[in-house]
């Protein structure tokens, strides 16, 4: 399956400077694993060592948050639009 990946500004420096790229994979996990092979510097920001989604990464397939679709098992169909959005968080501690 070929989908479109939209990359936010903050991740572009470690992903070749692109804002939109084509990605291959039938699940979110396959897409992210392929990305970590192509862009090794991003690995720690996408997936945990056990292959689950990083706590501070939001991934959308079209308008849907993949945490509610099975996480890395979420299906990716041809021409789906995948968006990666690192969480914006912090706090007083």
């Amino acid at each position, binding site marked *: 399956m070929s989908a479109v990946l*939209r990359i936010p500004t903050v991740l572009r420096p470690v992903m070749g400077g692109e804002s939109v790229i084509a990605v291959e994979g039938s699940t979110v996990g396959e897409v992210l694993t392929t990305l970590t092979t192509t862009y090794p510097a991003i690995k720690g920001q996408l997936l945990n060592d056990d292959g689950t989604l990083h706590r501070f990464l*939001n991934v959308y397939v079209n308008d849907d*948050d993949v945490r509610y679709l099975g996480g890395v098992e979420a299906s990716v169909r041809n021409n789906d639009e995948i968006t990666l959005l690192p*969480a914006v*968080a912090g*706090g*007083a501690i």
Partner: protein
Amino acid sequence: MLTLTTSQRETILATCVRALPNEGCGLLLGSPEGVVSDVIPSENVADSAKIYEIDPKVLLSTFRRVDHDGLTLVGVFHSHTHSEAYPSPTDVGQAPDPTWHYVLVSLAARPAQVRSFRVIDGRVNEETLSIED
């Protein structure tokens, strides 16, 4: 330097006061030069007085709006309810973007304090916060 209008500063303060006892937060759109055009309040989905997280739904809609309207996401604001308006180690560790402006509100101060910072390679530098009518 970051430039806010008086009204935008009030929106930031009101968002943080409404979120009490939790931290309040939101996003800032504007020009690359740091002139804010829009303050976008968010729910603190961390639901905490000590940490904040922008609602992912707000993040997604803002990301798409930025893409569509040619605006720039220039930063984020959040409050500290019981400490000074200065980035904590958590704030610094999770500062995602060296180009962003990090606006901190202290509701512990009387009157409330609003300050703006840049966080680059883990180093915190306060910047001028200009308030214009």
